[in-house]
């Protein structure tokens, strides 16, 4: 029984990295991303207000509840600044809920009492997503993914929590990792998404991959 989200770890010394990556810290597992980035020697800061985006070279939108994060982003005036941040070419990575906020098409989630409509999303990446498609929490799972697409290959320990499913990807989208036939990690230009949660593991390879994207942007 090992818990992978201890307290926030210390900011690395400034000389270890000039790259600064923000983590949207409205709700969810943001601390886990910050810790992973700091272990890689990257400056990482929580983002709760629009003005906190200014010093950033890249941004992670973490897992959590996508409806909650979307509403909070809207309430605190973050939706348009986030779209501008991405439009300016700054790399962004969404895990789980973050992927749902970034996807252009999440279809409808028909529920008794009317269809869900969610205006509080960024809708910038050309993917079609079915939210919570893998089922409820009892269906949440771990699986080892073939990771040949990463600079250091082998397998990647993926943790899927009430995970969304990528149903279709646009022409400009490059699949990165698969679970069987399904795309579970993908990149479109400077936008990256994973349906699973590398921040819940001790494996820093996807964070390293994203940091390289930020450094090369």
């Amino acid at each position, binding site marked *: *029984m*090992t*818990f*992978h*989200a*201890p*307290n926030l770890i210390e900011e690395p010394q400034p000389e270890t990295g000039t790259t600064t990556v923000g983590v949207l*810290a*409205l*709700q*969810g*597992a*943001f*601390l*886990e991303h910050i810790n992973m980035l700091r272990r890689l020697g990257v400056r990482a800061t929580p983002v*709760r207000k629009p003005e906190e985006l200014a010093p950033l070279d890249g941004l992670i939108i973490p*897992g*959590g*509840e996508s*409806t*909650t994060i979307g*509403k*909070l982003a809207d*309430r605190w005036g973050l939706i348009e600044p986030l779209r501008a941040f991405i439009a300016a070419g700054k790399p962004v990575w969404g895990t*789980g*809920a973050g992927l749902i906020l970034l996807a252009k098409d999440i279809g409808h*989630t028909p*529920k*008794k*009492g009317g269809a*869900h409509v969610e205006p509080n999303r960024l809708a910038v990446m050309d993917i079609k997503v079915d*939210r*919570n498609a893998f*089922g*409820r*929490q*009892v*269906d*949440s*799972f*771990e*699986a*080892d993914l073939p990771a040949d697409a990463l600079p250091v290959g082998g397998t990647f320990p993926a*943790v*899927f*929590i*009430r995970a969304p499913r990528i149903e279709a990807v646009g022409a400009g989208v490059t699949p990165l990792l698969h*679970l069987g036939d399904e795309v579970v990690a993908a990149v479109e230009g400077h936008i990256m998404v994973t349906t699973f*949660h590398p921040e*819940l*593991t001790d494996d820093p390879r996807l964070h390293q991959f994203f940091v390289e994207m930020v450094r090369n942007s």
Partner: protein
Amino acid sequence: MSTQNGNSQTGTWRVKVGLAQMLKGGVIMDVVTPEQAKIAEDAGACAVMALERVPADIRADGGVARMSDPGMIQRIMDTVSIPVMAKARIGHFVEAQILEAIGVDYIDESEVLTPADEAHHIYKHNFNVPFVCGCRNLGEALRRIGEGAAMMRTKGEAGTGDVVEAVRHARTVLGEIRRLQTMPEEELMTFAKSIGAPYELVKETRDLGRLPVVNFAAGGIATPADAALMMQLGVDGVFVGSGIFKSGDPAKRANAIVQAVTHFNDPKILAEISKDLGEPMVGINVRSLPEEEQLATRGW
């Protein structure tokens, strides 16, 4: 109990704790109807707790409080896309089996319901669905984690709208962890013995400097300030039971408490969101409660 299916495994410790990690920085709200569940979701709740009566009503009605009607829980699950939790009585592992069978996302083995066993809790490692349990101190927390709870909440005193017990329990748990961190190694075994906690979990807690699972606050939180107080004390999120739907304007109050948990460290924002919320729930001073009516003492 995890289940292997080809290359993938469900019900592992990591996915159980992982869902709680996704709930952090959020508010879990008690709801008794699908309509309330929708209001909670629209207000930004990160999950709902489906039950037949909120703790304030359980307190007022008396009698035996049991697991809610699975049909009612199912209707709430069909109404919202956020995770749905439900309560089983302490030690009532068959209520837990039923809740797992209908597919709730988390089971709360809760002192708010009338205990089914006055000596033992449910052996929670036997389930694929994760459990959250209440605690008043570190020993109780680590006993529950030892039995398989993947998330904790400090108990507070449910259904009172009085935050004093929530503060007491959070300070006790967090204070004991701080004490543990300065303790020399040769004292750990005796400390584990004195608080009735598994030695390995005492060691793990000392190394982490926190509980080895996500820890929310519960029991008596009624205002955005209460919620931010618990966050500043060091919990990972809050449960609000009677405090929302027993208040004058549930949607507005629910939304304000959600904002308060995100911006718990920003007094200017807290001031703004605390304005004009209408009447809070009518509270009960915990000191006026006779001991046999205090729910937090249930748990062994």
